[in-house]
C-alpha cells in the first residue's frame, strides 16, 4: 500500500449563485498519476485552485503527508510542495531559462546575482526533466512544449512533492506529448504524485494509474485505470449513458448557397474552390496549419485575400466588407473563443447581442424587451447554464462560454454557419449537445461548414469533406467514401 500524499475531504466552496464544490474529495498517493476528470464546470479547476492556494474553501480539510494544513496563498502551497502547471505558460518571455527558474530567489554571491552559478544549477534541473536547452536561452525562443518543461524544472527546483497539471497537452505536438509523458513517468519513480486534468480520454488511459471523476461540484468516484473502460468513465462523468453521441439525420441537401472560387492568400491559402448547399454539413479536415481557418476567414474578408470570387445566394460578395457579408446571412464562429469570440469582461447579454444590435437599437432608443427576448432565446435554445443573463462571461465554464459564442452567432439567424473547431476544450456532455444543435440546424436547411481536427466528429457529422494541407484543398470525399486511411493520405499530402 503506497503512502498517502494528499487527502482532501468534504471540501465545499460557493460563489454567488453557484455552489462550485459540494463535499468534494480527493486522495493522491505517492508516485502515482491521478487523472481528474469531469465536464466543464464540474469543479475540477476549483478543487485544484483550493489545493494550489488560490481559493480558500468554505469547509473541509486538507491533509498533506498526514498533516492537517490550511493553504492561504500560492506561496504557502509552494512551501508545502504543491506545484501547479497551468494551461497557460507562466514564465517571463524575455528572461533566460535560468533566470526564470530562479525568479524571485536569485542566487547571489557578494550581493550580486551570480549568473554562472544560476546557469550551472539550472542545468541540473533541466537535465532532471530531460530538457536539453542552454539555460541562457531566452524563454520566448523555446517552443510551447519546451517552455512547459522549463516550468516543470522550476517546480522541481522548488522541492515539489506533488504536481497539478491542468490540460498540459492542449498546445503540444505529438512528440512533445510523448516526451512530457516520459518525464512524468520519471517523476513518478521519484515518489512525486501528479494530478492530471485532461479532457482527452486517450491520454487519461495512457498516463494515469487511477482516475477521480467529478460531476456538478461533487465527488463521483475513483477507479483504477487498468480495470476500466472508456464508456465507464463517460457515464460516470455525465451521469447517464450517452447513446447516439453523434446525432445526425441525413437529408438530401438543397441548392448551393455559398460558392468560393480560386481563393488565394499568400502561401497560407492556394487556389481553393468549394461550395456548400442548404441542409448540408461540409467538413474541412487537415492538420494544424493546413490553412483551413485562413481560407474561411479570407472568404469573409477577415483575412487578406489576393483574388478569387465569393458568391452567396448567387450574388457576388467578393468586394464587400465583413459586416455586409455577414448581413448576407453567413456567420463564422471562430476557433479561439477567448481571443476572437467573446468579450470576457462583459455580460452574456452584451456578448450575445453585439452582432444583432440593429434588431433592437433604433435612433437613440433601445428596445430592452426585444433585447431580453433575443438573449433569453439564445440562452434557452443552447441550454447555457448561468444564474442570470447579466453574468460576466469570464465566470462561465469553457463549455458554457462556447455555447454563448454559438448563441451570439445564431442570434443573427444565419443561413450559412461556419464553425471553426466548435468542440475544442469542451467536455463530452457539451459536445453531444453541440452535435445535436448542429443536426437540428442542418435539418432546418442551414448550410454548415465545420472545420475540425478531430477525425471522429468530422466522419460522423459531415455529408461531405474537404481535406487540406499546405494551403491547398487536396481531396474531396463523400459520406460513402469516408475512410481514415484515405483522409490521412490527403491530409499529409506534400507540395507537388
Amino acid at each position, binding site marked *: 500500500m503506497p503512502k498517502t500524499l494528499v487527502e482532501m475531504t468534504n471540501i465545499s466552496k460557493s*460563489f*454567488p449563485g453557484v455552489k462550485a464544490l459540494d463535499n468534494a474529495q480527493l486522495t493522491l498517493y505517492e508516485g502515482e498519476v491521478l487523472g481528474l476528470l469531469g465536464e466543464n464546470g464540474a469543479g475540477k479547476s476549483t478543487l485544484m485552485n483550493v489545493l494550489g492556494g488560490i481559493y480558500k474553501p468554505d469547509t473541509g480539510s486538507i491533509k498533506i503527508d498526514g498533516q492537517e494544513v490550511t493553504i492561504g496563498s500560492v506561496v504557502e502551497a509552494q512551501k508545502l510542495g504543491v506545484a501547479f502547471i497551468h494551461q497557460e505558460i507562466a514564465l517571463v518571455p524575455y528572461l533566460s531559462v535560468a533566470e526564470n527558474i530562479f525568479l524571485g530567489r536569485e542566487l547571489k554571491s557578494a550581493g550580486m546575482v551570480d549568473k554562472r552559478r544560476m546557469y550551472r544549477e539550472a542545468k541540473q534541473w533541466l537535465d532532471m526533466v530531460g530538457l536539453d536547452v542552454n539555460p541562457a536561452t531566452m524563454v520566448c525562443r523555446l517552443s510551447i512544449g519546451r517552455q512547459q518543461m522549463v516550468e516543470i524544472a522550476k517546480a522541481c527546483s522548488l522541492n515539489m512533492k506533488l504536481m497539478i497539471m491542468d490540460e498540459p497537452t492542449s498546445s503540444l505536438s505529438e512528440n512533445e506529448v510523448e516526451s512530457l509523458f516520459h518525464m512524468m513517468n520519471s517523476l513518478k519513480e521519484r515518489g512525486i504524485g501528479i494530478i492530471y486534468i485532461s479532457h482527452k480520454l486517450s491520454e487519461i488511459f495512457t498516463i494515469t494509474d487511477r482516475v477521480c471523476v467529478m460531476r456538478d461540484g461533487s465527488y463521483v468516484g475513483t477507479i483504477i485505470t487498468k480495470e476500466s473502460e472508456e464508456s465507464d468513465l463517460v457515464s460516470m462523468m455525465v451521469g447517464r449513458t450517452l447513446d447516439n453521441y453523434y446525432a445526425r439525420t441525413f437529408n438530401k441537401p438543397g441548392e448551393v448557397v455559398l460558392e468560393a472560387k480560386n481563393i488565394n492568400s499568400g502561401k497560407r491559402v492556394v487556389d481553393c474552390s468549394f461550395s456548400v448547399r442548404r441542409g448540408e454539413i461540409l467538413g474541412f479536415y487537415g492538420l494544424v496549419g493546413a490553412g483551413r481557418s485562413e481560407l474561411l476567414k479570407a472568404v469573409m474578408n*477577415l483575412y487578406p485575400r489576393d483574388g478569387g470570387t465569393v458568391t452567396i445566394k448567387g450574388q457576388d460578395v467578393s468586394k464587400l*466588407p*465583413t*459586416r455586409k457579408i*455577414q*448581413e448576407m446571412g453567413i456567420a*463564422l464562429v*471562430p476557433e479561439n473563443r477567448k*481571443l*476572437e*469570440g*467573446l*468579450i*470576457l*469582461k*462583459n455580460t452574456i447579454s*452584451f456578448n450575445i*447581442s*453585439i*452582432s444583432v*444590435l*440593429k434588431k433592437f*437599437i433604433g435612433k*437613440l*432608443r*433601445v428596445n*430592452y424587451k426585444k433585447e*431580453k427576448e433575443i438573449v433569453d432565446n439564445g440562452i434557452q435554445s443552447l441550454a447555457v447554464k448561468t444564474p*442570470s443573463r*447579466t453574468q*460576466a462571461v*469570464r*465566470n462561465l465554464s469553457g463549455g458554457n462560454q462556447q455555447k454563448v459564442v454559438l448563441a*451570439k452567432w445564431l442570434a443573427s439567424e444565419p443561413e450559412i454557419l461556419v464553425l471553426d473547431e466548435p468542440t475544442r476544450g469542451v467536455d463530452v456532455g457539451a459536445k453531444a449537445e453541440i452535435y445535436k444543435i448542429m443536426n437540428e440546424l442542418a435539418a432546418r436547411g442551414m448550410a454548415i461548414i465545420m472545420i475540425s481536427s478531430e477525425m471522429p466528429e468530422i466522419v460522423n457529422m459531415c455529408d461531405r469533406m474537404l481535406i487540406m494541407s499546405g494551403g491547398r484543398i487536396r481531396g474531396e470525399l463523400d459520406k460513402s467514401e469516408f475512410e481514415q486511411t484515405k483522409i490521412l493520405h490527403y491530409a499529409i499530402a506534400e507540395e507537388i
Partner: protein
Amino acid sequence: MSKKFDMSKYEDHGILGPFVRYLKANLGILAAFIVLCLLITVMAPNFMTVNNWLTILRTVSTTGCLAIGVMLAIMLGGIDLTGGAMIACVGCLTVTAMERWGMPMVPAIAIGLLVGIVAGFIDGWIIAYSGIHPFVVTLAMQSILRGAAYLIAGGQPISLYANTTYPIIGTGLAGIVPYPIIYMLIFFFLQYLLLNKTKAGRYIYAVGGNATAAQFSGVDIKKVKIMAWTISGFLGAFAGIILSARMASGQPGTSIGAETDAIASCVLGGTSMYGGVGNTGGVLIGVMIIGVITNGLTLLHVDSNWQYVAKGLIILLAVYIDMIRQNKQQSRSE
C-alpha cells in the same frame, strides 16, 4: 454583489433601472465624494453654499468637456493627451480670427471647432490605420497644437475687444446658472445617450473589451476609433471656446496639464485604463471630485503649490480604495 440584497434583479425594471445600475457601478466613488464634501463642509463653513457650488461647477466645466472625450479614448484602451493644448490653440485661433482678421463671431467659432474636429480625426485616423500607440500620437498632436497656439497668437496673449457678444458664451447666466455648466451637462447627457442608447456606444465597449472579437462580430474597429478621437477633439475645441470666451482673450500658454485632470476624473470615475469599462455617471462624479478638491483646498487657504501635491495624493488614495473594492467584487464572483 451582495448576497443579502441582490440589486441585479431591479436592473431591468422600469424607470428605476438606470438609477440602480448607476448606484451599483459607482457606490464606492459616490461614497468617497460625499465623505469628501462633508469633511470640507466641517472645515470650511463657506463651502456648502449655492454660490460656491456654482463656482465649482463653472471651474470644472472645461475639465468636464475634456473628460467626456478622453473617456471615450480610454474606453478603447487608448488615451488622449491633446486636451490642454487644444484649449489653448482653439482659444487663440478663435480670438485672433475676430480680433485681427475681422471675422464675425459665428464663422470664427466654426473655424475653431473645425480645427478640433480635424485634429481629432487625424489622431483617430493615424491610431486606427498605423497602429502607433495613442499615447505617442496624441502626445505629438499636443506638441503641434501648443506650437500652433503660440504661432497664431504671435507668442503672447491677445485680448478681445472687437466682439462683445463672444465673452457672453463663457460668462452668461441662465437665471443663476452660468452657461458653461449647462454646456457641460448637455455633453454629459449626450455621451450617456451615445454609450447607452446607440449601436456605436456598444461598439465602443466591444472594441475596448476585445478588439479581435469585435472585428469578428462585424464591428468596423477603425471607424469606432476615428469616431472616438474625433469627438474628443471636438470637445477639446469646445472647452477652448468656453475658456477663451470667459477670459475674453486667447492665451497660448493656458491649461497646461488640463488633460491630466481629465484623465484623473475618468479613472476616479471607474473608467478602466485597460479599456472596455466605464460609465458616464462615474466620470461626472470624478470631475466633481477634482473640482471639489481644488475648491476646498483654496477655501482652506492651502498654498496653490501644495494643492497639486494634495490633489495627487487624494487621487492615488481614491483610486486605490476603488481598486480594492473592485478586486473584492471580482474575487467573489469568480
